[in-house]
């Protein structure tokens, strides 16, 4: 559970050389095209491009890729299944619609997975505050909060065990499990709020958000590579749409 959530400094991979804001711009482009397109060809072409970037994001080993993407693959399969089972279409058309949806989900989410795998969260916060003028309060506040997520996972386990030690266990009863789960979640929430309050006080004591204009020790630079990366994303989108139109598959959702 903690592996996809772990928030250490990411080890540098080739894709890390691209500034996070350039990666985000590329994601916005790809997302826009995917949201408009309603066919199978566009997400398929973009997915091929995404997959070509997978090794650059340090996910070249299938096990690493699966560890990062299993929830995504699972939900894509779910979306496809819902379409086939409950959609209004029958036979091959239903399967094609299911496959289109699954491909769209994967092609939409995979760039985000690559960004997370290749980007140190601190560098992301730096880039957002330096280039896009995102509020430092929001960026570094979120960063500090995100650091607490792995701690929450450990705390969840500890609360669960503590409850068993008190004689509280669901056994096989689904009603009891739901009640136990909500009780555990509540205890976790109480703990999380207390910890967050302490963190806020500590950040306050270190002069965070005290009205002084914050400087950035690491900085964040845009290089020609970043421009090329965004241009490449735009080109990939153009190729995908062209291929879709040429094969006659193009069917934008707003038509």
């Amino acid at each position, binding site marked *: 559970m903690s592996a996809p959530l772990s*928030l*250490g400094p990411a080890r540098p991979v080739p894709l890390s050389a691209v500034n996070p804001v350039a990666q985000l711009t590329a994601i916005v482009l790809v997302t826009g095209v995917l949201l408009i397109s309603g066919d199978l060809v566009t997400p398929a072409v973009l997915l091929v491009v995404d997959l070509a970037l997978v090794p650059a994001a340090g996910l070249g080993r299938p096990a690493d890729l699966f560890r990062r993407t299993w929830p995504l693959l699972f939900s894509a399969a779910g979306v496809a299944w819902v379409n086939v089972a409950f959609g209004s279409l029958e036979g091959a058309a239903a399967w094609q619609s299911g496959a289109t949806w699954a491909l769209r989900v994967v092609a939409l989410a995979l760039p985000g997975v690559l960004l997370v795998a290749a980007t140190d969260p601190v560098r992301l916060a730096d880039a957002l505050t330096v280039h896009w003028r995102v509020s430092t309060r929001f960026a570094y506040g979120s960063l500090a909060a995100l650091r607490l997520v792995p701690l929450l996972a450990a705390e969840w386990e500890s609360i669960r065990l503590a409850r068993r030690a008190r004689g509280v266990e669901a056994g096989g009863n689904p009603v009891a499990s739901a009640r136990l789960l909500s009780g555990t979640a509540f205890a976790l929430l109480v703990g999380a709020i207390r910890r967050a309050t302490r963190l806020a006080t500590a950040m306050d004591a270190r002069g965070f958000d005290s009205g002084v204009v914050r400087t950035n020790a690491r900085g964040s630079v845009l290089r020609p590579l970043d421009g090329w990366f965004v241009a490449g994303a735009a080109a990939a989108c153009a190729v995908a749409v062209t291929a879709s139109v040429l094969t006659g598959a193009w069917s934008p959702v707003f038509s």
Partner: protein
Amino acid sequence: MIGPAAIRLAGWGFRHASRRAWAVRDVDLSVAPGERVLLTGTSGAGKSTLLRALGGLLEPESGDTAGELTLDGAPADRRRQQVGMVFQDPDSQLVMTRAGDDVAFGLENTGTPPERIWPAVDAALDAVGFTLGRDRATAALSGGEKQRLVLAGALAPRPGLLLLDEPTAQLDPEGAALVRATVVRAVADRSATLVVVDHDVESWLPLVDRVVELLPGGGTVEHPPGWRPAPLRLPARRPHPPGEQLLAALATGFTHRGSGTPALLPTDAELRAGRTLAVTGPNGTGKSTLALLLAGLRAPTTGTVRPGPALTAGLRRPDRPPHRWPAGELVQRIGTVFQQPEHQFLTGRVRDELSLGALRAGAGNATAARRAEELMERLGLALLAEANPFTLSGGQQRRLSVATALATSPPVLVLDEPTFGQDRETWAELVALLAAQQDGERALCLVTHDAAVVTALADDVLTLGRPVGVP
């Protein structure tokens, strides 16, 4: 850099909004620039409130202030940039993922130009003796190293006043000693005035110039040089002849799923009726893991935990190991007290908390209620019967969590760091409470760093060591 700060309080007091009693009052105190002061006082005497006030962290709207509090002649909230502060829990103080970035955080906040930040970061890391490098991931550090880094972050802007609020309360003895040595090093040149609040008074005494005690009713007492706190009250020791074996760990080990290094190397341990086993050893040797295995809360990945016949009597499936017992049967046989008492509370009233275990184990309402009354009487919780467990003080919560474990009269009681972070009063109370549980029928297992607890209570000691080759 501005130089060490002078502190002056005259008739100072603070009352939190929505409270009727003053948290602190009538404090007159002057601290000269560069002086080192240890601030003591019982729980609830307002030590942390005073420290926050000195750090300029008490918002005017959060309560009423009386008297005067100044740093170098100005109100503390106007001198915030001059103050560095360190709190108890290192995990809720680190912001960044890398050591160097975290130390830089405070400097960035004060608008220091980037080219001046990194030399200051290196100087601060050097001042605290942090040698693991700027790029070290903060998440992978031990508690003591994390706290050392927090201290570097507080020192990097060269504060004139360093405030430490129980900086070692959550650390093992090794980590605590590391942090104290770091503080000594950092303030050796008297470039900052130091005010420390810590429950471990004795360890700080050689490092400070003055000891000031906050009195619970208001006012302060200055202790003369050479003052020492009253010795710990230890309960009388009685001989405990070993009885029947209740629980045994046979080459029991544990490795987390997906982890290459074992959390606990194969270990033998036995719990006998009437005896108290203390499990000690440095951090990271698997003490708490062993406690969870003995308590039937986790399944060992190697070896077995074998219950004796006295413990399995009455079980529906006596052939099963403790971690497979249904929770209702487990609570009647093995009670566990966790390090964080709050994790174990399930109800909104102390009274309900104490009858819950008996109800779960199948006792009737009347029996459960009677048992709860008796426990509250015996453990001094009677006055708190209607209180919400989450609102109790740390010491009261600790007592309640021991009481909840005792409510089902389990023959085995496993406690993880029962005295961790407690002040002297609470410590003595808890040790007396545990000593009272040592009778011929019951086996106690104490996981602890606290040498005084071992001296006071243990009949047998199991010291876990680090495996060779693992840092």
